[in-house]
């Protein structure tokens, strides 16, 4: 049972981190290599505010707000100049943004690893296993976010517009949709998701300016496996999370990391279109 919950948690973490990347890549065709740097900004904002006496939840909300604002600034200053450009340009530009953000954090807060206390402590016993309450909270939050996102995309007018822009951007523009604004809001939303991931994972991690950077490669592969569909993202996270947990539990973490990459390679070789839910 412990392994099952560990796998669920691992899938949730992959979902939490990759959802912002997924939104930006899926809608804008931009590979945002600054994603984990945005997460780092969020967690340092959280650290700053908790250090000034704010409670965790307010600090986390402030961290998300700071990252959302930063996303808007980066979009205005850099990313909007890259719309329609080759994907290499977006990789180079967002990588540059990432390096700048990491160094600014190092200058402002120092490079020493620190941490922030979790807001929920203790465990509950479930089927004989002790499960951390904070980890359960993360799993529940991720499930809620993914369900809400699916509902918005499937049932709301905003979701319809987003789907239309994703499917055929010139046509959407032709029928009067302000596609520039949709893209702008998408990047800001992606940054907000990075903020959410950073603030939620903060209490479980050592915090340094290169916070979560080791997750960037695996989550990028997950987004490639997703086929730019939310259902595909869910399947890709399940595949990566299972590979990570099972090979870690019954092998070792070094093999597990390699197996996540192998899983992505095999999936992309067999299903280059990604793990898309079949439509009839």
């Amino acid at each position, binding site marked *: 049972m*412990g*392994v099952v919950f*560990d796998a669920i*948690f*691992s899938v949730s*973490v992959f979902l939490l981190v990759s959802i912002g990347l997924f939104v930006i890549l899926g809608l804008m065709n931009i590979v945002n290599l600054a994603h984990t740097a945005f997460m780092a900004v969020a967690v340092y904002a959280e650290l700053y505010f908790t250090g000034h006496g704010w409670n965790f939840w307010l600090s986390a909300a402030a961290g998300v707000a700071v990252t959302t604002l930063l996303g808007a600034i980066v979009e205005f200053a*850099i990313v909007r*100049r*890259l719309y329609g*450009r080759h994907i290499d*340009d977006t990789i*180079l*530009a967002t*990588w*540059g*943004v*990432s*390096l*700048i953000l*990491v*160094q*600014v954090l*190092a200058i402002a807060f*120092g*490079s*020493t*690893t*620190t*941490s*922030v*206390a*979790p807001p929920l*402590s203790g*465990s509950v016993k479930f089927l004989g*296993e002790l499960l*951390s309450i*904070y*980890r359960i909270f993360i799993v529940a939050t991720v499930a809620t976010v993914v369900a809400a996102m699916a509902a918005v995309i499937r049932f709301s007018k905003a979701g319809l517009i987003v789907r239309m822009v994703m499917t055929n951007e010139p046509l959407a523009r032709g029928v009067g949709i302000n596609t520039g604004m949709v893209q702008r809001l998408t990047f800001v939303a992606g940054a907000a998701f990075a903020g959410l991931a950073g603030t939620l*994972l903060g*209490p*479980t*991690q*050592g*915090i*340094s*300016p*290169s*916070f*979560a*950077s*080791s*997750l960037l490669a695996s989550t990028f592969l997950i987004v490639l496996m997703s086929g730019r569909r939310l259902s595909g993202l869910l399947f890709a996270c399940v595949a990566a999370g299972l590979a990570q*947990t099972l090979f*870690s*539990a019954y092998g*070792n*973490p*070094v093999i*597990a*990391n390699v197996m996540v990459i192998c899983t992505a390679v095999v999936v992309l070789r067999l299903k280059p279109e990604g793990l898309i839910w079949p439509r009839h």
Partner: protein
Amino acid sequence: MSRHRRSRAVRLSAICAVVLSGAWSGPDSQARAGDVQPIKIGFMLPLSGPAAGGSAEGGQQGLRLAVDEINSRHLAARPFEAIIADDASDPRTAAEVCKRLIFQDKVDAIISQGPTANRMACNQAALKAGIPHLAALSGPGGMCIANLFMIGPETSQTLHTLVRQIVKDGNTKLYYMGADSSPIRDALPPAMSAAEAAGGTIIGSSFSPSGTTDFSSELAKIAAARPDAVIMMLMGADAVTFSRQFGGDDRVAAIKRADFLMTEKALHSLGRSGANIYSAASYYSSVPGEAGMEFKASLTRMYGEMAAPDVWAVMAYNAVHALAKAVTSPSSGAKEILEALPNISVDGPEGRIKISGRYISTPVFVGKTDGVGRVQIVATYSDVPPAAHCK
């Protein structure tokens, strides 16, 4: 927006990133005025990448303080000047950085605080050029290289002292949780011998790659093994990540922890979840004594609230003072320093260290974190000799 202006935005962003990423380095301290040329020290440490975060603040502060003292009190026959460089936690970068320091900046000595692989990559150029290289950190023993001196305890001096203390306190079944690196893996067999010699045993081990964000599976293995204590040999942010997850996991709540590589600041940041963690090092800011107090006061005068009087600061500080003692005349250069270093001792903030072969005899302190992450000294070993013997 024209294509030309867009390209310029991309290029500007990349240039700014490279400039800010630490690829640049420059003289850190003004040399004393006069005709005597300064001794240039190249100080290489990981300021970026996964290994950053350990020595970054303390190491630089200790180095700057020592250079300042040497120049203001004329403690060496030549003034000192330091150039700080980032090895980016990468051996290839470390090799390039060292070549630049030696052949372009013409440094007389190198002090480094990076992982073993970076140190060895750097030392290829230093050895070829006959430049003394002082590794100001704790590391594995048994490396006898003509120009390389460890100005920090070798792993056996601290780890074995720590293991003996834990076993002595009644924790006989131990689990070894390490980073997936050669020095950490190589430290396991001697640690097993030390545990057995003290009456304990290491019943299991795990190694995780750098940048691990989820230790659930390892914590499950530790819970299943039911040791009395876990020896944590993780580096940088991984050490804090593991401790945070360990502290929040009730499956391992009854198991004690002993950390070997976390900084005091990181231990402090753990707060209550970091209580009662054993640790061993050649220095803690809680070490009693006048020299230690003076060291902390000097760092606080220089850096105020940002002062980091930790073991990294002390090892960098001692390394610079060891070099100063080796510079005995205005004509002293790399060759003379290399000849003098094997007989030098330094009275540092932790007590006296003495270079013995290529390693040092040093005080070792075993500490335990209290409820707010401060390290309280529980045992002091005043002069622990190195196990490695280099001729």
